[in-house]
């Protein structure tokens, strides 16, 4: 009993430490913040811990977001979520109660953010239905142009799973959709879409949005997203246009490589390309110069997994 608690606690602490060490965090957590975090970790279940991980990721991705340029400050979700300890919860969600008494720690969640989440949830539900129908009717090529959001995964027949193999877990799909959205919400993606029309894209050579409806392990999915993002960096705006942006993006690319090294299956390919990274963007050069970048093999491997 007791030891179990300790283990959980220990793991979370380790995670918290990892956070504070990670260089890509834009805001280095202050001491009280960290304390609050670790005390919260004691209560939280595994699912929370995952959200936390995801949140960390999102912060990192937000570095190269293009549409926050109008000065909108993204609120930290941690602030708005610290209200949980209050036992005042009746049957009503806490966001709707006692707005006046909102002290320094507001119990009201963010309306705007809530609406964004609702929007994504309903979109994901709609997408599942479309995807199911598409698989069932078997015409995977014609229809997909008309699909609006996320899943622009063009698919050869090898790719179409049998209907039972679809990922239907909403939290998983939302998490994946968020990752995809962050990737798409970049200047590079806009440029890519403009420069390379869909029918000219070659599998393997051009980045292809991972298919969020397929069953993948967490690790495999995250890896696909990372590789997809790295590939998209080839369409980053020219360096002289926004040197700030480039610097951040470089950090991110390096970070991907580090992550690859940390994974259970260290890829010699990746580390070698990193060590020889005297040029600014090894992967980018790779993509531009040679027709068949090494990365493409890895994506396919990941997809097979």
């Amino acid at each position, binding site marked *: 009993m007791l030891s179990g608690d300790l283990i959980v606690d220990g793991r979370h602490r380790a995670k918290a430490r990892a956070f504070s060490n990670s260089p890509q965090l834009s805001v280095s957590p202050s001491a009280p913040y960290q304390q609050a975090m670790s005390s919260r970790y004691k209560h939280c279940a595994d699912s929370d811990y995952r959200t936390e991980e995801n949140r960390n990721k999102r912060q990192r991705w937000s570095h190269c977001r293009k*549409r926050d340029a*109008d*000065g*909108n400050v993204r609120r930290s979700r941690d602030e708005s979520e610290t209200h949980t300890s209050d036992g005042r919860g009746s049957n*009503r*969600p806490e*966001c*709707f109660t006692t*707005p*006046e008494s*909102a002290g320094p720690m507001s119990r*009201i969640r*963010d*309306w*705007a*953010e*809530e*609406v*964004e989440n*609702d*929007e994504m949830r*309903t*979109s994901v539900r*709609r997408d599942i239905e479309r995807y199911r129908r598409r698989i069932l009717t078997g015409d995977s090529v014609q229809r997909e142009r008309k699909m609006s959001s996320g899943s622009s995964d063009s698919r050869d027949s090898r790719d179409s799973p049998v209907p039972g193999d679809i990922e239907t877990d909403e939290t998983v799909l939302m998490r994946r959709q968020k990752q995809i959205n962050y990737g*798409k*919400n970049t200047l590079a993606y806009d440029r890519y879409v403009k420069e390379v029309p869909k029918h000219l894209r070659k599998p393997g050579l051009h980045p292809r949005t991972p298919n969020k409806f397929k069953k993948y392990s967490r690790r495999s999915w995250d890896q696909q997203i990372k590789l997809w993002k790295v590939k998209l960096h080839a369409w980053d705006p020219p360096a002289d246009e926004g040197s700030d942006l480039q610097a951040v993006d470089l950090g991110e690319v390096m970070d991907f490589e580090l992550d690859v090294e940390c994974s259970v299956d260290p890829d010699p390919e990746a580390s070698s390309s990193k060590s020889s990274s005297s040029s600014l963007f090894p992967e980018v050069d790779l993509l531009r110069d040679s027709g068949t970048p090494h990365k493409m093999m890895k994506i396919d491997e990941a997809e097979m997994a």
Partner: protein
Amino acid sequence: MTDAGAQTLNTMEDSSKEEYKIHSFDPETQKLLKTALKDPGLVDLEAVSNIIVDQSLKDQAFSKEAGRMCFTIVQAEAKQNNSSMFRSHLLNRLQKEFKSREQMRKRSILEWVCYVSFICNIFDYLKVNNMPMMVLVHPLYDCLMRLAQPDALKNEEEVDCLVLQLHRIGDQLEKVNADRMDELFFLLRDGFLLRDGLSSLTRLLLLEILEFRAGDWSLSDAAHKYYYSEVHD
């Protein structure tokens, strides 16, 4: 490609065809709003949302119609950038005002009534994947319940606002939360039956809204005649 082109054309036609009540703004602001309606990517959408909310809180007529304008901007932004900054700014501001609504009511009944009218209008116009914005449902009920309190029922401006909102969005609200609509109508019924000192107009408005809901959010012809014959004459 052609679809998208046709759609853009349609929106452009719409926005030029439709009249938005922006003539009361100074020329500079009018220009900003017109740009926001057509090309939201070019303007500071937080400033735009603040302008619209500020005006709504002052101008009762504007507060009743501003939702349509917000709808157009949200649509345009989604189409152009696939983003929803404007909606976020708008909701953030509305939430901020909501938190201090009791002070607002003390400060100015007009502002408070305008606020309720505006947020209801937003709820009416802005949908998320064809669904109402659920996050607004409880706040809206909170506002309407406040308008149904005894002290507010003595105030014709507030009663007028209350029944107008119920006429417009009562059925939508009931669909997403019928329990709170019941609660609200208990208040209205008790207000009508038990309160002294209500003006005859207030009693008429309350009676009409009770009958309106009882008739599944519509008035029978006979009832309509009963309430409006004098107006027509």
